[in-house]
């Protein structure tokens, strides 16, 4: 019996889908069976970021409608065989989702995978509500900026009122990933500090991901950045995936500007 995690953000463009792809791969690299489900119906992206766009035969809507079973629709990742992927439908829209069908899909996936990760659409409409409805936990992805924080706050509020678990009197675990942190800007005060973000959102910190130009290229290539051992964002996602798999990984402080040998040398000549 696996765990169902919804990746949410409220605001679009903060890195939800990128985080989903990288965490899924990271979890698979830890030897756990993981399936990623794209819930952004009508605007699917996850297939591209995983580099699997040309392998999609059946999508998750067809699975829900009973036109295909999970085995037929689940696409195995090229990078790791533990990672499977269910694409969203690109031709339909989110009105095709209904609670009973989503519940069944999620329950079926839980049977055969350790981790079921649902990539929520941006916004807080019905598509989002269906994504979070049957999730056991949520990962909230934010950027260190006020608009992202407020939207995430709203999304958490909806999660806390609409999730099936909450309606049963239980609590949905919520974890925060702060994405695209620029250490220099945090130090100069231009970017929100993670303590401030945590104070506003009041949920547990799962990890911090630094800004990394390599992410865009990795997405374009369909090779998630976690595969690049040198990438700082990739390393951050590895640490987070480790934490999700129950390892004790210390929180690395990426909000302090890099003081490598060259910077130290430069400092000496000031």
């Amino acid at each position, binding site marked *: 019996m696996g765990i169902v995690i919804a990746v949410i953000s409220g605001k679009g463009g903060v890195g939800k889908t990128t985080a989903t792809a990288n965490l899924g791969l990271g979890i698979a690299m830890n030897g756990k069976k993981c399936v990623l489900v794209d819930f952004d119906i009508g605007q699917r992206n996850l297939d591209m970021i995983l580099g699997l766009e040309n392998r999609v035969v059946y999508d998750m809507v067809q699975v829900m409608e009973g036109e295909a079973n999970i085995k037929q629709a689940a696409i195995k990742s090229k990078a790791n065989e533990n990672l499977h992927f269910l694409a969203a439908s690109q031709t339909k829209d989110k009105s095709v989702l209904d609670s009973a069908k989503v519940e069944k899909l999620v329950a079926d996936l839980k049977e055969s995978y350790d981790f079921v990760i649902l990539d929520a659409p941006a916004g807080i409409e019905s598509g989002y509500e269906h994504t979070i409805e049957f999730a056991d936990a949520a990962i909230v992805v934010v950027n260190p900026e*006020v608009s992202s924080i*407020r939207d995430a*706050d*709203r999304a958490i*509020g909806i999660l*806390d009122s609409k999730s099936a678990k909450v309606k049963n009197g239980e609590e949905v675990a919520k974890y925060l990933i702060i994405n695209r942190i620029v250490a220099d800007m945090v130090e100069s005060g231009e970017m929100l500090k993670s303590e401030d973000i945590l104070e506003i959102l009041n949920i547990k910190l799962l990890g911090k991901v630094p800004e990394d130009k390599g992410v865009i290229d990795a997405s374009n290539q369909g090779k998630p950045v976690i595969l690049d051992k040198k990438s700082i964002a990739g390393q951050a996602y590895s640490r987070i995936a480790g934490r999700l798999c129950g390892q004790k990984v210390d929180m690395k402080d990426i909000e302090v500007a890099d003081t490598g040998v060259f910077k130290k040398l430069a400092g000496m000549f000031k």
Partner: protein
Amino acid sequence: MKSKQYSVKVYETTITDESKFMDFFDSNYTLFKDHLIVIQGTMSKTIENYLVNKKLKYLNDVVLPKGRTRKALEDELNFEKVDIAVSQQITQNELERLSTQLQNNLTVMDEMIRSGRELNIQGDLLLLNRVNSGATIKTTGNLIITKVVEGSIRCYGNFMMLTASPKANIVFHNVEVDNNLLEERLNRVEFTNNEIIITPVLKKEINWA
């Protein structure tokens, strides 16, 4: 030159009512018998005789060599005292004052009010948590929020109590309150003679827990 230095206790006063003065010394004689009595202003023969009879040492109309004037000393003492006692005393006064203005149905909440949430409270609300940006709270009664407010507040009660909240949108009886006027700790916002008065209530942070 031979000399000695003493510290003397001085009782300084001016006489307005002679009989009262004598009554006072009659009853407090033991307390003041070793004091130097300084009478500022006019002193009648009666008083002089009285003091001589009582064997009290006295001076009339002298400027005592004091480091600070008595007034300054008193002020300073008072100031310190006030500073120390202020939070307790004021809190108590505040509570007494406010208790008469409280409405009946008080709601107490200790949960974060997240963005998008709208609370409509009939009666008073005591909120022990944050109000995030994008959240709205309306109360028909009084409103006390002990943590920072970044959302909107509409209060129609007799008073509000808020901490400094630079990002908040605060409306008290349809009048927008300038949040620059809110100081660090709790502030009381109320109507007095058709004017909104904001008073900082506490100098020290109170621990509500």
